[in-house]
């Protein structure tokens, strides 16, 4: 969940772009991974395939479509990416049919670990580890490297950065593709948990928007904390009042919007 939300918030926060096709890219990642995983029986190759598929997909749609929409109002961005999502999902359906595909847990994820008396699947713990490493890597990339510096500078003042002889367009393309690849990564890691079919990304999109609203739009830490809070709310509510677990998530979102409209980690008046 944090991965999906992070990809979304990177694109929105850094590029100021609302991407409603994020759920569809998540699905594309899952299918890219599934094709290679079932052919080669190697989950690692599946992960690489998912990353490659969605990174390339990100580059292609950024170049052909998204680029013209950066300076248009969010309504336009939502409409165009919403349409794009339909195209991606229906293309997947046309190629692979709507049938649910079998996506096994990789052998190294089979097993249950006893953590202080509570049984927890090994696979989920491993995924948490992967997510933590990925988040750290992205953080370092954006805040500690030259590329990150260019990205952040390019967002603040594209004109000046351009005048300095740096290709801002290419940087933006890279950021968008990275956001897409994060969705793809989440897609392939979620596949052993979910029913793999063309509509698998729909709920993911809605929930990641909730995560972003709770955490604060465009905030790196916000996406992570928002994801954790959303997860906690659902788990705790399920344990005590299961009937209201999903409703409570939206109650939490409403409370955040009322008490701190910019989100927990958002900055007031950020444009």
């Amino acid at each position: 969940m944090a991965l999906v939300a992070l990809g979304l918030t990177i694109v929105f926060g850094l590029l100021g772009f609302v991407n409603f096709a994020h759920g569809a890219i998540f699905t594309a990642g899952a299918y890219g991974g599934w094709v290679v995983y079932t052919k080669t029986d190697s989950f690692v190759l599946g992960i690489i395939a998912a990353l490659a598929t969605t990174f390339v997909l990100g580059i292609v749609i950024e170049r052909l479509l998204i680029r013209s929409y950066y300076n248009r109002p969010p309504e336009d961005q939502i409409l165009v990416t919403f349409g794009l999502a339909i195209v991606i999902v229906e293309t997947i359906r046309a190629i692979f049919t709507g049938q649910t595909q079998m996506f096994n847990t990789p052998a190294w994820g089979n097993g249950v670990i006893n953590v202080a008396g509570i049984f927890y699947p090994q696979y989920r713990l491993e995924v948490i580890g992967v997510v933590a490493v990925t988040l750290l890597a992205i953080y370092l990339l954006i805040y500690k490297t030259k590329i990150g510096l260019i990205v952040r500078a390019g967002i603040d003042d594209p004109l000046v950065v351009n005048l300095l002889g740096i290709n801002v367009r290419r940087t933006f393309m890279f950021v968008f593709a990275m956001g897409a690849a994060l969705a793809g990564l989440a897609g392939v890691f979620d596949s052993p948990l979910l029913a793999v079919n063309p509509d698998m990304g729909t709920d993911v999109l809605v929930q990641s928007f909730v995560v972003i609203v709770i955490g604060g739009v465009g905030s790196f830490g916000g996406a992570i904390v928002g994801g954790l809070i959303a997860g906690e709310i659902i788990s705790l509510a399920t344990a005590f009042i299961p009937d209201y677990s999903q409703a409570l998530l939206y109650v939490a979102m409403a409370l955040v919007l009322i008490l701190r409209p910019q989100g927990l980690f958002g900055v007031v008046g950020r444009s």
Partner: protein
Amino acid sequence: MADSRRSFLTASLGAASALAASGLPFPRISLGADDTLFVGLLCDQTGSYSADGEDLQKGYELAIEELNAGTGVMGKVLGGKKGVLGKKIVYKIADTQTKPDPAVQRATEFITQDKATMFTGGVSTAEVIAMEKTAQANKVLFMTGASGSNDTTGKDCQRYAFRSQCDAYMVSKALAPVLAAKLGKKRRAVYLVPDYSYGHSLADSMKEFTEKEGWTTVAQVVAPFPTSDYSSYLTNIANANADTFVNIEFGNDGVSSTKQAAQFGVLKKMQLVVPNISTYFADGVGADIMAGVYGTLPWSFRLQDRYPMAKLFVENFTKKFGIRPRWTAQIAYDQIAIWADACYRAKSIASADVIKVLEEGHPIELSLGKVSYRAGDHQLVRPVPIVLGKKPEAMQGKDDFFEILEVVPGESVMQPLNLTGCTLPPV
């Protein structure tokens, strides 16, 4: 980018409601001339039950093709007559998105704009019950798609709606004695239940009949519909001190919850029972998990060994689509056949006349043997196949997941009419 967070939120909200409202109908041939009859098909092309909806749609397509040509099972049932009372059937397919609102919207368009003689479809009980009400309000016959809740022909029953799938009561009454015979009478069961009519209805019936056999229900965990992450629900299930896990979840939710249950080690500790196995459930979870699982399937291609019509249906379906039919396709096909047969008997296509004939309960031989509708609640009197998941090495073909243990006759498991809670409104 000069827009505030507020405008982002407003716009997101707008897009979300656009998402909810978009219907995306897929128009097909519509001749509209006097020598044709229009039938509206409502299939779940997107949403949680879209795979089942795809199979349903194939069933309708084959049924109408063979009805117009006078071939296949249709040809046998109707003595080779083509179409219905000399009229060719034309149709449109609309996507219900596995949601009641779009389903009702599309059904209403079929009735008002296309002047549908009859409409049929739906895979979720929530959609089907909503469309039953549409049928009653507009006085147009509705032959339901897949719907397993007792309410469909119980408290929500309608004069203008007929349901062919076995209901939760039939499934449970047929399955419980087999479970007790195979697994023993001293089992402790925990339930995972999707939070809507179908889920509660099937869970309640299963509890009633397994408890009669001596089982104990130790816990019931309710999850919203739909859900994708079951971890918190499964933690409760894993800690429930049960030896049997009864999974009521259906469609994608059934697949996700079962895959995750395997990861949580629940399936190692507990025997899995899936009372109503959805169309592509086994494909999604795989044969390794499926092996040794007990449940019922409304229909399986394996029934071709018992019923000649099933054999013919499987042959022609496989010829047309290159894959074997699942049970949603069988429901689709048979509902069209039952309707066409009733039109011929009534010598009319008017819904009121057709309903009268259907209520007379003429047995008709289809891919589940002889079946007929019960007048009191419009439930099809039909057998319930009890199945056991095969070991991967015993499978013949990649869709041959199940061995049929028993076919329980419909008459013996029908819910007594006075208990259904059904009062049919007048014609």
